[in-house]
């Protein structure tokens, strides 16, 4: 059986074998200077899954995501996306960086940021046409930000900025979405809006991987979990892997047992 993956305007992009992985990482090691940050990571993400990358601060969650995208150069390791080398598959990948990674005082409007997601389509000198603008507005609509289209990005709240980043990723019309802390420092309404969009994506057969730090919402939001603390601790469906024992190993005993029990009660 094959699953047909479609871009947002309905055209079939490719069909991927059901069994093939959306993302395969092998032996990924990254170091900043002398200090290794992540060590020999293997990761397999199934198409149509929604995976949380979970681990303590400094565990290398963001670094893993950046290395997967080629934003930081790994010392070693390979990345394959939909059974292709990363370079070839980049058009099928969308990325939501950490909100704090950019200067929000940059002279640009909300709609301009979303249009950046169409960069590959527009090329160097391609004219922005009405249908491009309509697509960008549609993406803003999906995150509930249409009325802010003409706003300077610095005038938005943290949650609104995060939604703009998500809208830009939607504009990329990708099949694999990699998000770095999409829920960090956002209001409850934004969190609900973002998770709704991510679940829509999953329902449409897309694959989502997000760095996530709020353990209490993992079972509600995600189907799979990847536990990391510089090395891979475990990966699998939430109900198998998101257990007190595994979390204890991931966090090195820094979480109270009662806390762990409460968190994973629903899952186990």
């Amino acid at each position: 059986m094959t699953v047909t993956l479609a871009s947002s305007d309905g055209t079939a992009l490719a069909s991927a074998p059901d069994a093939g992985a959306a993302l395969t990482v092998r032996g990924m090691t990254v170091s900043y200077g002398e200090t290794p940050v992540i060590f020999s990571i293997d990761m397999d993400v199934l198409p149509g899954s929604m995976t949380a990358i979970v681990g303590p601060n400094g565990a290398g969650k963001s670094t893993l995501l950046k290395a997967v995208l080629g934003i930081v150069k790994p010392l070693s390791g390979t990345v394959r996306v939909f059974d292709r080398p990363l370079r070839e598959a980049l058009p099928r990948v969308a990325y939501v960086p950490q909100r704090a990674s950019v200067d929000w005082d940059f002279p640009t409007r909300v709609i301009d940021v979303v249009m950046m997601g169409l960069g590959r389509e527009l090329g160097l000198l391609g004219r922005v046409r009405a249908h491009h603008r309509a697509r960008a507005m549609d993406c803003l609509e999906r995150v509930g930000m249409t009325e802010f289209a003409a706003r300077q990005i610095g005038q938005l709240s943290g949650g609104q900025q995060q939604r703009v980043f998500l809208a830009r990723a939607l504009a990329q019309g990708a099949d694999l979405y990699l998000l770095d802390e999409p829920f960090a420092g956002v209001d409850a309404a934004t969190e609900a809006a973002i998770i709704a969009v991510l679940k829509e994506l999953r329902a449409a057969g897309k694959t989502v991987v997000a760095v996530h730090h709020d353990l209490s919402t993992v079972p509600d939001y995600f189907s799979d979990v990847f536990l990391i603390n510089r090395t891979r601790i475990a990966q699998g469906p939430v109900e198998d892997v998101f257990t007190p024992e595994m979390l204890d190993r991931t966090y090195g005993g820094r979480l109270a047992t009662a806390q762990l029990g409460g968190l994973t009660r629903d899952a186990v």
Partner: protein
Amino acid sequence: MGADFVALSIVPLVIGVLAAVACALPGNFLVLRRQALIGDAISHVVLPGIVVGFLVAGVAGTWPMLIGATAAALVAVLMIEGIQRLGRVEPGAAMGVTFTTLFAAGVLLLEQSDTSSVHLDVEHALYGNLESLIWIDATGWGSLVDLQALAGLPPELTRISVAALGVVAFVWFAWRPLAVSTFDEGFARSMGLPVRAIGIALVVVSALAAVAAFDAVGSIIVIAMFICPPAAARLVTNRLVAQVAWSVGFAVLSAVAGYVLAGYGPIWLGFGNSVSAAGMIATVSGLILAVCAIAGPARHATT
């Protein structure tokens, strides 16, 4: 006004405007990337470049000096990148170390070698010689269509025109990658854009603009034009396209108003002599920035 204006003023005005625009355009991106000091760095390392160009060529020609200056600018750019990466220091520190060291080396070289035949002194380096770039062959407005007279235009005009054209072409063609990688480097990389190459290309283009402008108008204008018009324009608008357009407007305004004020301002005030056009152009650009800082509609830092 007619013949005198064509012979004495039109060339310095056009050169001033082109130099200002050639520096202000890449300056927009340098300022947004917190690399504004690059203009300062480049205009300092031009000195050792000129001296080395002279020593290698053995003659005080324009081309050896220009090539030396360009090479020095590129060496400086590579040094800044290298120091930043190997020494893990912030860009400002890397730039500061690079341009002071190279400038000092240039002074030592100048002292140790017989460069007395070269017209090179601190004053020239700072203010350039905008007022001396006169069009001797011009006899009036008709000279603008007289091929023979046009052939006598100062060569600085050709060089800054080529540089300005190059800068405009670069900003035009690289607009989207430049804008995306300046705003969000990580996202730009995730789209497969050659972010490092874009950054280096921007600095190299800035270096070429700086060297060409330095040749004609001195380093004061170079340093001022890389920073003042873009910074003032940022205070007027919240859109990148509009900011770049405003910065070009401010650069032209600075060049024209500065040139006119330098020539006539002191006389209007009752003083006998005119003042340095380069100094006045830079001062006007600073005043424009001051006005925008007080009254610019987009000056409120967003939170």
